[in-house]
């Protein structure tokens, strides 16, 4: 019902505006077109000036209202670099923004049509053109310089001691794999993927490096103040590991693994103390991936090394989950004969199924 009323009100409002607009045309003709044109010219010139003043105030007001709602302190070392770069760029572009907008609207107001002034014939001035080619060129060189300096730091090789975690995006959640004691992620092949066989990542069980790898979904655990390197895969379509608090982002592309690394600075507990008990480091999918894109949420728990170790130890390796009957003892040994036995057993299990 209310919709109908809104539509009726809109149509009525529109008709009123239209009638006024039509009438103003007749009035203009009656009063003399030249005179009414000059009146509207003055009104519009004034409005342009008013728009400048109100607009600049609006920019300030918008900042007051929203600055508390954007992210706080960056929670990673790379995040600090990115924020520094943002501040440098904001300073440069902010100054240019204010100067050019003020000149534009002020000139429009100041040089509005007037009978007493003649337009100044000023077709070109090569010196001016040189100046305003050179200055932006210099400023941009500085910005490129800073930008690339940070860019190479952020995208450079991860430190050797980084904790490696594999992240896989699929419609519409996240899967994680941690290397066990051997610190090596075992091989995998997408044609081995099978939920029925408890092998969601397609791990190759005849690779012994796989035997201690831990698989989880939804929540990723990382260690505070220790570099973490994510090796990123996608199963079906392109996803993107978006870590807003760490200021990091990297696409997950089917068939092409990607990587990113960073060092978390604060544990989840510390952040909850600062930002309230609801705080969570969230993983957002930042690349359109289908109907559930908006709900493709994961979380990250940043904790101490001790907590992390205890958590990891509480998880059963996926090998043991997939092959319950064959693994009485924890694998991870480099004994090749044992591996062969294991893979033979796996084959037997899979044939039985």
């Amino acid at each position, binding site marked *: 019902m209310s*919709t109908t009323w809104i539509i009726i009100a809109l149509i009525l409002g529109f008709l009123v*505006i239209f009638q*006024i*607009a039509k009438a*103003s*045309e007749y009035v203009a003709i009656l009063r003399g077109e030249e005179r009414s044109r000059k009146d*509207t010219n003055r009104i*519009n*010139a004034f409005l*342009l000036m008013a*728009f400048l003043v109100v607009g600049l105030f*609006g920019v300030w007001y918008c900042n007051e209202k929203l600055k508390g*709602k*954007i*992210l706080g302190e960056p929670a990673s070392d790379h995040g600090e670099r*990115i924020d520094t770069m943002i501040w440098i*760029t904001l300073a*440069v*572009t902010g100054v240019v*923004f204010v100067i*050019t907008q003020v000149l*534009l609207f002020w*000139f*429009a107001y100041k040089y509005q*049509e007037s009978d007493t002034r*003649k*337009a*100044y*014939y*000023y*077709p070109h001035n090569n010196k001016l053109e040189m100046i*305003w*080619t050179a200055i*932006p060129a210099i400023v941009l060189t500085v910005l*490129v310089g800073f930008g*690339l300096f940070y860019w190479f730091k*952020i995208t450079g090789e991860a430190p050797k001691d980084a904790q490696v975690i594999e992240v896989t995006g699929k*419609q519409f959640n996240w899967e994680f794999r941690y290397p066990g004691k051997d610190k090596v992620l075992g091989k995998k092949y*997408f*044609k081995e993927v099978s939920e029925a066989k408890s092998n969601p990542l397609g791990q190759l069980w005849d690779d012994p490096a796989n035997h201690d790898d831990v698989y989880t979904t939804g929540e990723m655990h990382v260690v505070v103040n220790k570099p973490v390197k994510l090796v990123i895969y996608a199963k079906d*379509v*392109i996803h993107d590991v978006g870590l*807003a608090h760490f200021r*990091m*982002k990297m*696409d997950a*592309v*089917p*068939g*092409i693994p*990607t990587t990113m690394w960073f060092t978390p600075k604060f544990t989840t507990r510390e952040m909850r103390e600062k930002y309230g008990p*609801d705080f969570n480091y*969230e993983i*957002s999918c*930042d690349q*359109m991936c*289908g109907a*559930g894109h*908006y*709900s493709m949420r994961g979380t990250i728990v940043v904790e101490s090394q001790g907590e992390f170790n205890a958590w990891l130890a509480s998880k059963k390796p996926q090998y043991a989950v997939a092959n319950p009957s064959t693994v009485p003892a924890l694998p991870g040994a480099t004994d090749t004969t044992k591996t062969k036995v294991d893979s033979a057993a796996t084959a037997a299990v899979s044939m039985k199924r």
Partner: protein
Amino acid sequence: MDQHTNHNVHTDVHVVHEHHVDHDGNGHHHHKESFISKYIFSQDHKMIARQFLITGIIWAIVGGLFSVLFRLQLAYPDESFPILETFFGRWAQGGQIQPEFYYALVTMHGTVLVFFVLTGGLSGTFANLLIPLQAGARDMASPFMNMLSYWFFFLASVVMFSSLFVQTGPASGGWTAYPPLSALGQASSGSKIGMDLWITSMALFVVSSLLGGLNYIVTILNMRTKGMTMTRLPLTIWAVFFTAILGVLSFPVLLSGFILLLFDRNLGTSFYLSDIVVNGQILPNEGGSAILYQHLFWFLGHPEVYIIILPAMGLVSEVMSVNSRKPVFGYMAMVGSLFAITILAFLVWAHHMFVTGMNPFLGAFFVLLTLLIAIPSAIKVFNWITTIWRGNIRFTPAMLFAIGFVSMFISGGLTGIWLGNSTIDIHLHDTYFVVAHFHIVMGVSAFFGMFAGVYHWFPKMFGRYLNNTLGYIHFWITLAGAYLIFWPMHYQGMAGVPRRYLDFRLWTSFNQFSDLNKMITIVSIVVFFTQLMFVFNFFYSIFKGRKVRTMNPWGATTLEWTTPINPGHGNWPGEIPEVHRWAYDYGKDGRDFIPQTEPLNPNETKH
């Protein structure tokens, strides 16, 4: 020579026999024209321009309406609008926009506005209208190809529109249509038949764009009237010239990308597909690269934004100069910067791909080249500001939109310096910051340029004026509304809020903007209705607007205002006028303006 050639072309055009061009100067050239040859399969560039414009307007209403619908969802994710279910059935079950519907709306909004409105509607209208009129030709080099260009556009429109009605819905993988999402029907219902229709429509669109573009280039290079050297051309013509070159060189690459996608979808090839397990189903494809598509797409996709903005720049330069009663400042620098933008446009595409896993070393070059584009853009802004400096400005609606264009272009251009820097892009990529940036710099700006053009050349197109009061209301609400909608989105982007999310209630990091989202939605509804008011003004004024009574209502120097108020096919009843000077002699030697057709006076000051 030019006149002679033009004359021939003109007679060629009308295969209608016993047709004679009368040179006695009274009346238009006539031959019996049927309704069909005049209004439908017309070969007159002015009629084709109107066809492009009106088709563009219809698409703009559709695309704008889509944005209102998805803005409703963003502002009121938990409310139910029964009226939506009435109109859209299961797509809005329970009065709530379903995710598939939301993504279809977003995808179609982008596709329609980028390609059908701001490429077809903008270039198609003003390149067609202005090239022959301002360069001094009777029509395009090939009026028949020009007609085909419109009809391919129309066909593309029909196919795209029909895709809205298929059962599985239209394409819904975003306007960029990245595979594998767009390649696999199992991954999204929009990637079923809707996607094939989308690709077909886009292929037809590319054909239309190439037919048009080649024609524009040839006409500008070969069919200028006597005395019209390249450096005497108005900046509008330079702008559409570079636009056409961009389109001709980059659209074929897009087409090739789409064709490979079509093969992957229907013929079992693996250009873009590898290592895929979708919905538990293991696909056989191996060895393809999903990133290859992105390179092919953005090799057009980035020039595309310049294809959109360059014509707007040209229109604005012209409108600003005319209404400041002053020459455009730094004509050669303006042409030079258009040229620089055209060249650089081909060398920056991978800045859309900084976080795809592309080699960071390669990324560094794209940072450098991308930020270089800021230099010609800055030159243009400074030149526009200097053009109005010490002018004698008339604020027609066209002039206001031109000023609004510069303001928007500054605001959106500066955030380009943020995003072009890969370090910052890591954080802001695919957030609302990007949405704010490109809507301001190419969406709103290009629309402002287009409005400036429509208000300024409406008298030439239809022999009547648009209603001024409605024009002023249109401008002020649109300017204020555009800033209110898009400015705060920068803050959402800084908070990391991702694009293409229809509901933030699940999230703790992104759910703090619900009041802001309501405000933005309400403003966008108001702005949408204001645009409808413009559309009403447009159609009403075609039939009932105040009549144009003088040949040159704005006191402009350029050739289109030397034609009759309602020029017939062939534009000038007599000889095509000869040109003796550049297009910007305003306020020279104490005279308000000197038309391009007036011979140089030996006592004139040189510039």
